[in-house]
């Protein structure tokens, strides 16, 4: 039985297809202005196995053809993310907090705290004893602790987003990033650049600033073992290192593909719901 999870994020959209709970395929695309089209394009990316947005696949997928799959082949579809309410073909939508909590447990069993930093928000989730969301905090008011800040600075320094992590690791100088506001990020980066500072050091300072921000956020729900980092920042080795340095010896667990955590959670909920629906159908038939 195939189920689909689709996560329409503010910057990128991800689609995951599970076959009886096993990962069959996934894909991602940039979120466009039209959510209907974006949702369809995310499905196409999954069946055609494209993650053009992030380069290589990090999870080895089963060696079966998937490009013939259609939306109608899915037993159940759950949408999540900021555009979750307007996915036309979804049977149900579930908040991204709940889906990230579920998905994180699929990648890292026994997870206690999840830090998810996406394109335009950041959240901390505390997982309860039974895998439920025990507590969460969210920042979607200020771009300062989000991927958008990194994007703005990367652009100002003419460094591709995917490269800012590795580049920042080559830093040799502690250089505090002068702005905590993402809107000032461009100006701050350009000024430091003009003053002769190296990109490596500017980015290192940026990661330091963002790490402080997101750690202050996630501390509100409590940090406990196992600690999972998900979302776009999971692909930024520079920032992950800064976060690890602030964990008091705790290890940061990184899902192999940190950006699909929410979509995997949605697909798992879809599986639950599909089974429930099956049972309901069976009992209905029996009753009839």
């Amino acid at each position, binding site marked *: 039985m195939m189920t689909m999870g689709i996560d329409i994020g*503010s910057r990128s959209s991800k689609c995951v297809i599970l076959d009886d709970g096993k990962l069959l395929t996934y894909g991602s695309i940039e979120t466009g*202005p039209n959510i209907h089209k974006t949702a369809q394009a995310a499905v196409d990316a999954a069946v055609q196995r494209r993650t053009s947005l992030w380069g290589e696949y990090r999870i080895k997928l089963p060696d079966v053809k998937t490009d013939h799959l259609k939306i109608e082949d899915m037993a159940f579809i759950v949408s999540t993310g900021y555009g979750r309410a307007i996915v036309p073909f979804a049977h149900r939508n579930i908040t991204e907090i709940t889906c990230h909590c579920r998905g994180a447990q699929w990648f890292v069993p026994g997870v206690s705290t999840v830090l998810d930093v996406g394109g*335009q928000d950041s959240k901390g989730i505390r997982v309860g004893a039974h895998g439920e969301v025990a507590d969460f905090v969210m920042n*979607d*008011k*200020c*771009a*300062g602790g989000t991927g*958008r*800040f990194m994007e*703005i600075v990367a652009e100002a320094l003419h460094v591709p987003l995917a490269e800012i992590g590795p580049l920042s690791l080559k830093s040799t100088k502690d250089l505090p990033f002068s702005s*905590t*506001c*993402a*809107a*000032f990020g461009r*100006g701050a980066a350009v*000024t430091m650049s*003009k003053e002769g500072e190296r990109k490596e050091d500017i980015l290192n300072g940026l990661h330091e600033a963002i790490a402080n921000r997101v750690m202050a956020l996630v501390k509100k729900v409590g940090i406990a073992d196992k600690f999972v980092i998900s979302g776009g920042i999971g692909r930024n080795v520079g920032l992950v290192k800064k976060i690890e340095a602030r964990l008091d010896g705790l290890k940061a667990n990184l899902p192999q593909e940190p950006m699909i955590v929410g979509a995997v959670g949605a697909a798992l909920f879809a599986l639950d719901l599909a089974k429930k629906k099956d049972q309901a159908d069976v009992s209905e038939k029996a009753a009839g």
Partner: protein
Amino acid sequence: MAVVGVDLGSQSTKAVILEGDKILGGASMQTGESAETEARMAVQEALKQTGLKREDLKAAVATGTLAVPVTAALNIAALKTRSPASCIATGAFFRFPQARTVLYVGCDSSLAVRMSAEGEVEESVKNERCAVSSGALLDILARMLEVPVEELGALSLQSTAPEKVSSRCVVFAEGEILSFIHKDPPVPVPDVLAGANQCIADGLWGMVQKVGVPSELLICGGVARNAGIVKAIEDRLGKPVLLPKQPQYVRALGAAVFARQMEKEGVAS
């Protein structure tokens, strides 16, 4: 004796030449690659209006975000830097001694100052952490709507139904405003601008309230040329504000007043 004040803003560099109580000239240059060059050029431009020569300038004070690197470039023996806050207060007090509160709004910084009746800074609040209370959003709007930034204010006053911006972050507001423009039919430009003005004015008003308005409020800085923002502040204040004719020069003027003081005290000799 003529003196000069130079204000190195993040987007433009201004110079004001002062002799006694008379403003002889003023010029503004766009800030680009080199602060030194722009400072020199702004002073040169201002000098042109006065018939004076560089040697006639007996003292100079620089202020603004990049004040330090230019001190060597101006080639004026008596040159000091003063903090932006004190220059704003001094410049405002020079023009309108009745002002007790000053709201300065620049391209990416803003400041609210409360002064004593003698023009001394009593309390000030800066926007350093957040761009929402600055001109940053206006720049973005001008680019997005392809309207010159100077025309935004007048255009926003034509609005009949301002479109509310719910974001409190410039970065997110940009996305929200983009969705207004892409709506079918699109939100009329004046309504987009008026909505954005409310968003900016809310941030600024919060700063003004922190320092308080014991009597008159003066608005200056480049953003004070936007009539829509000024009106939005006046709506919150409940009465007209004091508005200098060329509000963008107030900070440079304050620097010039300090230079005059230096010259008087004989620091220049």
